């Protein structure tokens, strides 16, 4: 659209202002995380006089950063891996099987996408207790698979429709059985939608708060978000320490964002348009 020079300037100003607001709290968290408590209260907006890492080393220890980070990674990898495997199998087969039964199962999955997590959290907590998966990160991963397959199946189901059937038929003639056909021919072809699903699920699982809050009961199994929450509750007056913890928790996602920006944005659009 062609715009006048004056309105173009106004638009730039508005964008710069919005960008400042977007960066403002992150910037404040970062600069203050390097200060001592005294230095901080003298002025929150001044730059730190030196790059003091004490807050970070202390937050690192208090968060049991290494084990929390390992837990977050484990849950994400197992959860996403499980969702991709289970949902691609089911979505492919449901898409290729005509008939009422497969249609019914598909709609059962799709309808459940509307159920808010808060409507199931109480019975889910009980179910986790009964199955003895509460308190373990492996149990948590299983729950993520159970909660995440519906959307993934929906996306795979739509994508498979665009994959020509001739490929399977010729693989069958060449002597592949169903599983070989799936793993050697079909699954590699699903890569674009697999990437989309993996990204959406990573952002969901990595940043999720309420489910791990309900499921993880002992400190050994805390994810990064849950340890940060505990730390915030216990030391909420020691801001310099808390801020270091917040920055540490945010760093992995921001790094991943920097590297995979293009895919993340494409994934969001695709997931939203199809979902």
């Amino acid at each position, binding site marked *: 659209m062609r715009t006048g020079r004056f309105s173009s300037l106004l638009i730039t100003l508005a*964008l710069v202002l919005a960008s400042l607001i977007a960066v403002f709290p992150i910037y404040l968290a970062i600069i203050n995380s390097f200060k001592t408590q005294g230095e901080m209260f003298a002025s929150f907006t001044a730059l730190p006089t030196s790059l003091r890492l004490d807050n970070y080393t202390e937050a690192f220890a208090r968060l049991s950063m290494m084990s929390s980070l390992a837990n977050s990674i484990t849950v994400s990898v197992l959860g996403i891996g499980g969702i991709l495997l289970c949902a691609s199998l*089911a979505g492919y087969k449901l898409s290729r099987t005509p008939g009422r039964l497969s249609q019914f199962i598909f709609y059962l999955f799709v309808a459940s996408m509307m159920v808010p997590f*808060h409507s199931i959290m*109480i019975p889910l907590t009980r179910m986790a207790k009964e199955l003895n998966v509460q308190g373990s990160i492996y149990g948590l991963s299983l729950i993520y698979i159970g909660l995440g397959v*519906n959307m993934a199946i929906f996306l795979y189901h739509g994508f498979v429709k665009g994959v020509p059937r001739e490929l399977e038929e010729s693989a069958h003639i060449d002597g592949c059985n169903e599983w070989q056909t799936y793993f050697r021919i079909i699954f590699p072809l699903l890569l674009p939608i697999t990437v989309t699903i993996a990204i959406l699920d990573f952002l969901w699982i990595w940043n999720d*708060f309420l489910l791990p809050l*309900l499921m993880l009961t002992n400190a050994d199994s805390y994810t990064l978000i849950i340890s940060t929450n505990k730390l915030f509750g216990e030391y909420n007056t020691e801001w310099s320490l808390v801020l270091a913890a917040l920055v540490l928790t945010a760093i992995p996602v921001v790094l991943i964002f920097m590297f995979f920006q293009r895919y993340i944005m494409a994934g969001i*659009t695709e997931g*939203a*348009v199809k979902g």
Partner: protein
Amino acid sequence: MAAKSYKRLLSLAAFVMPAFILYTLFLLVPTIGGMYYSFTDWNGLNRAYEFIGFANFVEALREDPDFVHSLWFTLKYVMFMLVLQNVFALLLALFIETKFRSKGLFRTVLFMPNMISTIISAFMWTFVFSQVLPQLGERAGLGFLNQSWLGDPGTSFYSILIVSLWNGVGYMMIIYLAALQGVPQSLREAAVIDGARPWQVLRHVTLPMITHAITICLFLTLNGAFKVFEVVYGLTGGGPGRSTQVITLNIYEEAFSNNFRYGYASAKSVILFLVILIFTFIQISITKRREVEA
């Protein structure tokens, strides 16, 4: 023939089973269970429970002022979010579209807050609201900055909004940007040649071409806003008192930190589910009617 269809069923079962088992255990059964429990007086202290009909629903809507307040408070929040989140996101997307060289930079910076977990965002903003703004207000003599952002029920509503928008606008902006890229440049140029002013191009060409994205973003905002939890939990915890308590927080408190009345809390969560369904249905039926094909 029968053998073939049996074989086909078996292969369907084999492929679908892993997903279906986990889905049933952790989503389907809890969904049905929640609805069932909402008609009982089950609580966490006693294993035995009885069927009590609609008593929980009547109690929640008639005798529980905290819950009714949380319903209205959430509704108010949803309405503000519905308008503000989409207006800001659409405006930013339109603005970014007019830029060439700085497009990528603005898009990255404005989208970044969305990457940070909502609860972490709420903690960062707690720092800003409780420490930084009061100090800035005092030093710079800007009185309006130096107020109880999180301690006053009226003001904290806006603090909750600010953080939600900060966190959420980027996501919607990306969807609008993608939709804007799909609007053929030739259509806009034709309108300009016909003498349309920028506002008229927006109103009669661009907006009608992206109604699909508007429908999606309204749907996503509506759904997300009714389920708001982390922002309020992190900023005010529902306080002072229960003045900023949203529905989800009320349910959470009822089930896990107050008196463990699981049956009663389930009834509240069924109410939340129904409210979301009704509003979504209304929204979709209104916006779908306005969509046009390119």
